């Protein structure tokens, strides 16, 4: 029996691209579920009880646990960026523009994105694994049965904590990155720290700092949201905990770049970059 040619073509397409199509379908289903999870967060966030004590505990844990990593990464980024850019700027006789270039690139882009990526690895995976193991060991069910709303206690507090702490970590990361850059300039170019930072602050405007800070809030929200989503709905026993931690990092990292693109696009409209 010969099939109608368009049907043959359709079947050929389905056989060839079916795994890809199902992958795309799964991705969009996941996006839909994540949006529903975010909606639930916004519905629950203002409902009493506010769980303020747990929120403070989470803020302390997330800020404190990631601080060292963020500072080390920021310092190295500042050092490396300056060392790598120096020869090219010298070639063009523009080495005196180093503080301006480094300051703007770190505050606008590198600081928020790199801090967020470091925190995605550190915090999102941690939340994914923690909530995943709580799900597997029935601790979330135990909270539910005891009359406590586990979504409010576990999810809302963690998402709020990451949203509030990430901008602080970004600012500290930016500061230490600039210090790393100033150190290189001080050693290699004999530029004093005072002169270096004067030039950095001359170059920076509110238009650099404000969008970057707002962007950091969204990065923090994304890290908390995806980490909690992956952990809270973790399945398949202990193996699922590893999967939750792993996919939380991958998904968050992708989402961070998407948010970054949108943020730069919007900033461009308002500040004419």
């Amino acid at each position, binding site marked *: 029996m010969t099939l109608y040619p368009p049907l043959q073509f359709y079947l050929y397409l389905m056989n060839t691209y079916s795994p890809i199509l199902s992958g795309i379908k799964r991705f969009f289903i996941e996006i839909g579920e994540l949006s529903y999870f975010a909606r639930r967060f916004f519905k629950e966030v203002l409902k009493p009880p506010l769980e303020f004590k747990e929120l403070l505990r989470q803020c302390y844990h997330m800020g404190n646990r990631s601080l060292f990593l963020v500072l080390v990464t920021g310092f190295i980024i500042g050092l490396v960026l300056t060392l790598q850019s120096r020869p090219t700027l010298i070639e063009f006789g523009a080495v005196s523009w180093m503080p301006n270039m480094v300051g703007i690139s770190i505050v606008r882009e590198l600081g928020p994105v790199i801090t967020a990526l470091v925190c995605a690895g550190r915090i999102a995976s941690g939340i994914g694994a923690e909530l995943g193991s709580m799900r597997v060991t029935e601790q979330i*069910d135990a909270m539910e049965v005891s009359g*406590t709303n586990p979504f409010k206690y576990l999810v809302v507090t963690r998402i709020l904590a990451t949203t509030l702490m990430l901008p602080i970590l970004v600012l500290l990361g930016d500061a230490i990155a600039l210090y790393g850059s100033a150190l290189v300039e001080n050693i290699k170019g004999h530029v004093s720290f005072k002169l270096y930072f004067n030039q950095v602050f001359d170059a920076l405007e509110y238009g650099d700092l404000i969008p970057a800070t707002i962007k950091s809030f969204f990065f923090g929200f994304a890290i908390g949201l995806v980490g909690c989503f992956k952990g809270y709905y973790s399945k398949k026993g202990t193996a699922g905990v590893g999967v939750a931690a792993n996919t939380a990092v991958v998904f968050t990292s992708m989402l961070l770049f998407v948010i970054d693109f949108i943020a730069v696009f919007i900033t461009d409209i308002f500040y004419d970059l």
Partner: protein
Amino acid sequence: MIHIKDLYKSFGNNHVLNGFNLRLYEGENLVVMGKSGSGKSVMIKCLVGLIQPDKGFISVMGKEIKTLDRETLDVLRSDIGFLFQGSALYDSMTVRENLEFPLRRHKRKMGGNTDPEPLVVEALQNVGLADAIDLMPEELSGGMKRRVALARTLILKPKIILYDEPTSGLDPITAKEIIELMRSIQKKYGTSSLIITHDVDCARVISERMVLLVDGINYVEGTFEELNRSTDPKVEAFFKK
């Protein structure tokens, strides 16, 4: 206290409960036995609203579970204690914090008292672990974890306690201690208990009535002795040594 009628629950093509029926009376110790994966845990999770059944009627202390809003369900849950199979202690909290946790939401159960300490101490004394109050769950043995979980269940003074495999994963001596503890608690507080198990020794000691869950239905009911004498191959499979 509990009435389940024609309960159905499926996961995909796996039909776990196929019209299960059960009644638990006041002050009674009822044991539900069944093979692993027969749907015992699913059934008690339906009772407290952790799993939504596909079909059927569940009433706990005269209230139909599926008609309750979140607030009313939470209040009802404070009258139902649930001992989880793996104890389910919050591993980021100390024993004290684990016991205080259910009280945060149910202040009326503290009798207007703002200090939870006496209730925590009393609950821990009931399970013989008053010294473990400041330990973390990771510092406790399996049997101690089960006792602390039982204390956490007791702290809200529930009228019904649901035990999900209370002796699983424990050595015979510790299992016996847990069973004794369950009996003494039942005697002291007059609670009704629904015990899910596949441990015949546990069932023999604690049950006043038993239900066998086979193929998603309440296959047979009776006392331990009645079921032990049964010549039905499906019943015998549980009791033969």
